[in-house]
């Protein structure tokens, strides 16, 4: 088996474990922002889309790349903004000012 592919599998598995460890510690209070945040992060497919859109390989590929870039950007920008909007709202009980 291609050693590089094996390395990629290691990375995937390790990342999965890290993800599991981190996410089990997120309180139920923050589950909605968590969904939104992981959604925003998965918009990293923007990176792949950019290369395809800029490759100038064929008309079809460029169109697909362009749509992909647009869609992924909606995902990223929207996702980060909405997560921030949600997180801004979580406030502790204010200390009473005398």
């Amino acid at each position, binding site marked *: 088996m*291609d050693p*590089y*592919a094996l390395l*990629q599998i290691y*990375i*995937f598995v390790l*990342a*999965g474990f*890290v*993800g*599991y460890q*981190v*996410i089990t510690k997120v309180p*139920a*209070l923050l*589950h*909605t*922002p*968590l*969904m*939104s*945040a*992981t*959604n*925003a*992060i*998965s918009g*990293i*497919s*923007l*990176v*792949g*889309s*950019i*290369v*395809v859109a*800029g*490759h100038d*390989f064929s008309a079809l*590929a460029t169109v697909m*790349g362009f*749509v*992909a*870039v*647009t*869609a992924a*950007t*909606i*995902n990223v*920008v*929207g*996702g980060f903004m*909405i997560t*921030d909007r*949600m*997180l801004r*709202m979580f*406030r502790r*009980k*204010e200390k009473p000012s005398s």
Partner: protein
Amino acid sequence: MTTSLIQISYLAAAVLFILGLRGLTAPDTARRGMNMAALGMLAAVVGTLMHHDIVRYEWILIGIVVGSAVGAAMAIFMPMTAMPQRIALSHAFGALAAALVGLAKYDIFMAEDTLGHARMGAIAFEVMFGSLTVTGSLMAFAKLQELMRGSPITFRGQNAMNISLFAVTFCLFLYLIYDPSQRELLYVVAGLSLAIGVLMVLPIGGADMPVVVSLLNSYAGLAASATGFAIDNNVLIIAGALDGASGFLLSILMSRAMNRSFANVIFGAFGTPQVTAGAKSSAGLTVRSITVEDAAIQMAYARLVIVVPGYGMAVAQAQHQVRELAEQVEKRGGEVKYAIHPVAGRMPGHMNVLLAEANIPYDKLLDMDEINSQFANADVALVIGANDVVNPAARNDKASPIYGMPILNVDAAKAVIVMKRSMNPGFAGIENELFYDEKTSLLFGDAKASLGKLVSEMKNV
């Protein structure tokens, strides 16, 4: 040189993503964490722009500008109550990008003759999961936004059809790995996956939507990971794994909170054909309705009020009025706590976000395990637009579709006031015997209006 710079930016992005998610473990560190993750994303994007394969920048730039505008508009203009739909829609976009990249890269790899079997497998997986997440998420969006019926749509032989469709697609997937030259087959797989996405979500309704949205989140992540395998991009693999793990975990947590097995939620659709309301019927039972004035008196003299928010509160956008009510109770020396059931609302954590938006301090929002024992001390349990999560049938009625689901012990409270628009059954379509209990009174009307009136009445007591 540029390749190393790109790789470094990817590494930085991966690290920042993980640190960012870790920030979400507490509300105080959450925003900072997200800023780090955003920085990571920026680093990855800027790094990619230096990629040697790129010869034209126009389409990239136009795409980014248009995408940013639409994304920002979605974030700014969609109300908090539409949060679940918004996230579903976002999944659709992300998955679309993954699927399209797969299809385009297939052609590019074929031309470069670098399309090995493993890489073909990654691309086919990416196209498959990407496509089914697109349609699945759009379906979830439609159901949540009430563009179509929220209740499960089932028909005879549905499970058999879905399974055979999936089996056929899977076989084509395997064949493609065996013979990567069959370009048309890849498109067939894409088309079939689009259909699978629709059919998968069709029979799911009601309280199960949070599980579906989490699961689709997971699939979008897996598609992103597969893209990473296909184009040798490690940050994609890592980000996809993080997203996949998160979505999957949340789905399992949700299912457990409903006391149903995960498989049952996805494939069960409450069993075919649709079970109606177990054995209990409401014929001959009366409900006690209460006026705003009487309710105000109960609330004014209560020492402990536990508020149980549900989807109805979200629909009525009544969260701010809830806070005003809480202030009235606290002014009289009472205490207000909020009982958040894990599947209240249409998304995990939905209620928390809405109440936080209303400036309710988050340490008052207690989850089911923390608060269930306190209901016995509560003078008033105020149920606002929640139905299934307080339905005693889950404890008592073996024939009920929600049997076994842990619920909030609202019936242990000294008095229960339920705010509802009408006697119509909730999203899952089940009768709720809590409403007919002698300790329970119903305050009919739109939650926002009722709460507003309740607050003004309380000021007069």
